[in-house]
């Protein structure tokens, strides 16, 4: 049996990778994928803890996260698509219209 700590370590590593990717990459699509990685890292942590505590609550949370992530993917992709159509770019450094 694999201990829960290993899962958590993996989840933490995944999450850190996601954060790193988000800050290193400059196009919106890749950064979006980095966010997905972070979400799934969190899911993995939830599942590991659910397995360790033998409770189903955390598993339910995972289902919720998956659902929200699916919806978010739709909305996010649409926004990216529209942003590209309008500005002919998805480089986040160029999309700074909301500067105060």
């Amino acid at each position, binding site marked *: 049996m694999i201990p829960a700590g290993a899962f958590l370590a993996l989840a933490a590593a995944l999450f850190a990778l996601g954060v790193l990717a*988000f*800050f290193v990459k400059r196009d919106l699509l890749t950064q979006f994928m980095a966010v997905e990685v972070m979400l799934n890292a969190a899911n993995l942590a939830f599942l590991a803890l659910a397995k360790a505590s033998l409770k189903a609550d955390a598993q339910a949370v995972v289902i919720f996260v998956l659902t929200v992530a699916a919806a978010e993917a739709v909305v996010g992709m649409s926004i990216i698509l529209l942003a590209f159509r309008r500005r002919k770019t998805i480089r*986040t450094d160029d*999309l*700074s219209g909301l*500067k*105060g």
Partner: protein
Amino acid sequence: MARELWLIPLLPALSSAVLLLLGSRLSRRWISLQACLAVLASLALSAAALVRLLGAANGAPPLSGTLFTWVASGSLSVPASLTFDPLTAVMSLVVTGVGLLIHVYSAGYMAGDRDYSRYFGLLNLFTFFMLVLVMASSIVLMFVGWEGVGLCSYLLIGFWFEKPAAARAGMKAFIVTRVGDAAFVLGMLTLVAAVGGPEFARINAAAAAGGLAPWLATLAPVLLFAGAAGKSAQVPLYVWLPDAMEGPTPVSALIHAATMVTAGVYMVARLNGLYSASAVAGPLVASVGAVTAVFAASLALVQTDIKKVLAYSTISQLGYMFIGCGVGAYGAGIFHLVTHAFFKGLLFLAAGSVIHALSGEQDIRKMGGLRRRLPRTFPAFFVAALAISGIPFLSGFFSKDAILTSAYEGGHLAVWLLGLLAAVMTAFYIFRLVFLIFFGEERTDAEVRRHIHESPPVMTVPLAVLAVLSALGGLIGLPAVFGERADLLGRFLAPVLKAAEAPPAAVEWNLILVSTTAAAGGLFLAFLFYLRYPGTPARLAARWPFLYRTLIGKYYVDEFYDAVFVRPLVRGSELVYASFDLAVIDGALNGSAAAAQAAGRGASRLQTGRIKDYALAFLLGAVLFLGFILAWKA
């Protein structure tokens, strides 16, 4: 007839609402017709109420109608209630009767004005408020009418508001009467608090029965009289009335001669129980009236604007009415109010006709010789002039005589002498007008002279009706020497105003002789000065330049008020404006706005528009938060 009494004031109110709200969609013909019909209906209803009143048994309570309870607060209850007793009957017939004639006249006089509907709407509104004033059964409801007519007066004086002088005159009228009204409110509140109710009947009864504390019985009528002095243009608050002549001439006739300015006299007569009960109030009213009568008449002697002469004359005649009320002859005061409404209304309307004929010229030095050019206006003006001078057997003779007789009989010799002096001056200044306008050579400008024309019938017919009333109106109040029952008005008013004691016939005849001599003397002097030896006035002015300048300067009262009240107030306001308004209030507001703006500008730097900066903030926040939780747990 109880609640139906309300129809008398409400019909003009309804008509006014239609004219003011929908006036722009109505034809001119319809506007004047509707306005006149509304007043005619009120007149007819007043006449019907009068017939009922005459038919009622002696000692029966007056007609009254309550619509609803207006104020119910603790022990105080003010009903919206109208009363129709003999005094109200006289007043409402004058208001609607003379008012109707002036409405009709206005249809001709204002024919060329573009604000036709506003004019008639306001005239109807004025009629409504004036009727509320004279019909109210409580002093509180009367005050509603009192303020309402003041508002209409303001709006109509400033009717041609694009003329700065007219706008200023309207404001002056409003503010000066406000000074008196403040005292009026104080008097009203003291009285209502002391008596326990606002009804006139209760106030008079309580005062007559000695139910008021002595200081209160003096203070309340004096405060109320201050309000009357404002509204009825008595010394020292008369200064607004001459300026009010900036309004259209029919307005001067209706509001500033026949009706509104007599509201103060009506109020004193209505509260006769209160005024009779005080040893101070009556003589005060009579003295102010006598001083005003002479003071204003002296100013009318030298004015050169036809309407200004009539304005000072009105102030002077109102003084007469107050003499009557002050010496206890309330009936005589009301009698003079009625005849004055006839002849002064007529004088103003005839003056309007003259002004109309001369394309707006108001300076009597540029008139003259008009008696043949204005064959219908001239006799009307002449009859009114005879009536106001007190030439025997015309209306003004009887009413003025009734007042002077009462003053003499009451032992108020000084008041009587002042009244007599004012009578001489009255005959003089009014015939000065007659001679300068209608006799002598024509001094009109050549351009004006080519357009002189008599006014249309819609204007001259009201003149004719008023001329008949001015001539014969006095017959309703013959003195006792013509028979025990000759004084119809006095007997009619007796249930409300107790009749004055008639003097012995010999005294009465002598007094009549004296006042006739006074009138004839003034008339003769005017004849000498302005027809026989036309150079006399200029010679006299050169002989006593100081006196002449003082009169022309109107005793410098306006200048005095300006220096003592107006300018310090303006100066003080400017000071407060600069030091407090600008510095403190505006400073605080502008300061807080500037602070918010600066804070916003600073905070907006945080919004860089770069997603990574936001994400970094999230990350740092999350790390800090987690670190905090972990540290706290440990």
